């Protein structure tokens, strides 16, 4: 029998130290083939996302086409890792990416607020899984977490995990609402012990979304969990990453904290909607030596 840790004793984070360490990766010079490889890897790690009230089948189909054909002018580009949609759009998305290897992720559990009873959340999850979702992005109950109801949060994640079946579960901490690094670390520990396959920073609906220091806190939590249990957990920063350079900083951070075994889309994702085009623009610049107009890149 494995005893769970006391989550109120999760390691503390020194704010100055973590921000200093995170800023260090922004000083790493990424050039030439390392840059190109990093950009290609970034594309392949993207969860291309549309999460709007006004989403329609048409909008989702167009995005799914983009997911498979990022920029056909450049031969041999990878696809993105997944498309991320609301449960009601899963069936449409699933059909649109069929045969491409692109996964369909669905945000469930009363995304983005998570303010719903547990049975509603479980039904939401099961619905998305039945519609064909490969991955479920759930939100934790931040209110309960901030009240100190860690068991509630833990049990809820475990219940959603059970409802996921074979779908991989991403647990969104919504770090912008947890505010402190200590709380981010504690929520990460709870999510991993409760069965998360991924831990994810944000819904994208709250600012600040993903930041380098917050991501570093979560990567260190993943590393410490791996040291203790031998089990790998994946990471997904989401929201606020729209530039290639920043994406490369995230990859450097990942590379230096968790190492090469995490450097693929099984273990790392970017939740982003506009990152892909900036990366494509940089890739074309590496190839041709000049920047092209944004109008050369489709906006689906």
């Amino acid at each position, binding site marked *: 029998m*494995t005893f769970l840790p006391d989550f109120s004793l999760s390691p503390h984070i020194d704010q100055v130290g973590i921000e200093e360490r995170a800023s260090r990766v922004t000083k790493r010079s990424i050039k030439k083939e390392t840059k190109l490889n990093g950009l290609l890897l970034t594309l392949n790690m993207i969860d291309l996302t549309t999460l709007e009230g006004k989403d329609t089948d048409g909008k989702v189909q167009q995005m799914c086409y983009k997911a498979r054909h990022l920029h056909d002018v450049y031969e041999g580009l990878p696809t993105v890792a997944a498309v991320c949609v609301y449960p009601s759009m899963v069936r449409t998305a699933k059909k649109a990416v069929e045969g491409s290897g692109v996964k369909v992720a669905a945000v469930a559990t009363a995304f983005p607020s998570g303010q719903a009873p547990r049975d509603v959340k479980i039904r939401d999850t099961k619905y998305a899984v039945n519609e064909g979702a490969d991955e479920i992005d759930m939100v934790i109950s931040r209110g309960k977490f901030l009240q100190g109801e860690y068991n509630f949060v833990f049990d809820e994640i475990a219940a959603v995990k059970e409802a996921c079946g074979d779908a991989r579960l991403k647990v969104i901490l919504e770090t912008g609402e947890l505010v402190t690094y200590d709380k981010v670390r504690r929520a990460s520990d709870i999510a991993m012990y409760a069965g998360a396959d991924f831990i994810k920073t944000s819904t994208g609906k709250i600012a600040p979304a993903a930041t380098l220091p917050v991501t570093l806190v979560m990567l260190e939590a993943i590393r410490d969990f791996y040291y203790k249990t031998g089990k790998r957990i994946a990471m997904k920063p989401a929201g606020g990453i729209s530039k290639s350079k920043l994406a490369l900083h995230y990859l450097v951070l990942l590379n230096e904290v968790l190492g090469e075994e995490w450097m693929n889309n099984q273990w790392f994702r970017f939740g982003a909607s506009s990152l892909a085009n900036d990366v494509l623009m940089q890739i074309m610049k590496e190839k041709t030596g000049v920047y092209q107009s944004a109008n050369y890149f489709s906006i689906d």
Partner: protein
Amino acid sequence: MAKAKNNTIKLKFDSARKFAPAPESRSAAKINARYDHFINGKFEKPQSKKYFATINPATEEKLSEVADGNTADVDKAVKAARTAYDKYWKKMPGAERAKYIYRVARMLQERAREFAIIESLDGGKPIRESRDFDVPTAANHFFYYAGWADKLEYAFPNRKTQPLGVAGQIIPWNFPLLMAAWKIAPALATGNTVVLKPAESTPLTALKLAEIIQEADLPPGVVNIITGAGVTGAALVNHPGVDKIAFTGSTNVGKIIQNAIAGTPKKATLELGGKAANIIFDDAPINQAVEGVINGIFFNQGHVCCAGSRLYVQESVFKTVVQKLKDRIETLIVGEPLDKRTDIGAIKSKEQLGIINNYLKIGQKEGADMHQSSAVLPAKGFWCRPTIFTNVAQSNRIAQEEIFGPVLAIQSFRTDDEVIEKANNTPYGLSAGVWTDKGSKIFNLTTKLRAGVVWANTFNKFDPTSPFGGYKESGYGREGGLYGLNAYVKIV
């Protein structure tokens, strides 16, 4: 959930070091084939007519040659400094002195890139450090002390101060430009004139600074820079025209200097060796503490007098910390100092590498467990992999003596009292680090640790406004901040 044993889990970082090179351009820095002494505002050939080479420790190539100073050169420089003191500098209002010092600071900033490149070429330190730390901090020291030059009556309320006269300053090879700034800036601000001798193996940035001082149009003789080895330094220390000696370097040489000036009216400040204790308690923010340890011992290849070379880890987190350190050093890139990727550059000299390697042998012979990163070292030049020793006792030489390299000796401890006693159980007392999330524990330790600087939840932080200096055999006198002015004035 299967619980794996700690020692079976290891992260893989082979690719972490495989970034494409990002070299800084060497051509952005101009290095003359030969440098003379800088005396009385002019570059002057040495009386001995002799020059010696300074090399790039990363390639063993000769960079330039510099004048070999003898007693006659020193005499000339001291006389120039005395004349400048009497004729210009002591009479000049503080606000006017400040203008000159500001000008030096501004010019240093403008030419920061060139200085950073030369500092890395001559000293072997990573360009990331010379660019982001050495050069900007040196400029900041000039800015800071320029600000004090006309405010000395506020620094010493209700007292009158006078400059000491001619300051003889001898600096080491680990932070050549920064140490020059630490020495020159407060001396000038308080109205002293200067004869500075940089280390014989890293004279280039000081000589570049001489060019700036010339361009800044400081009155001739206010700053003189002479190059040479120990003999030149001894001539400066023993010169009767020198009123003050400021020395940074080894404890052995510090003792020689103290002997030499005993019975003379010369004042001295000595900043000597160290063997700093870095202490991690089990309630520390462990991941940040590990980063702090890495920064504490591997910054500037461990060529830092205040390096955190003795690590004390509370036994309940000992295994975790060691595991994390071992994984972390795998990600450190050792190699070409001018490459912007580099974390750890070249060991300063063949001689220093010999000393470090000897300590590695001693450590193993003493029965300590040595662990090094698997970094591949360049074929030419002087290199040492980041190294950590576990299974170390207080009585091991590697835990007692200053190694001055990227070598960390780790010991465990159990209680607060025990670690305070062990941390203080050293002839040195320059710096210390405490890692705990508990504020009261920090204050308890900072009052009991016999060290000039105690960092809490950080390490190797320097700022012109904060004083720096040692207890016991780490020297006396303070540099930096308000206290740094004390060393260059007499209060009348």
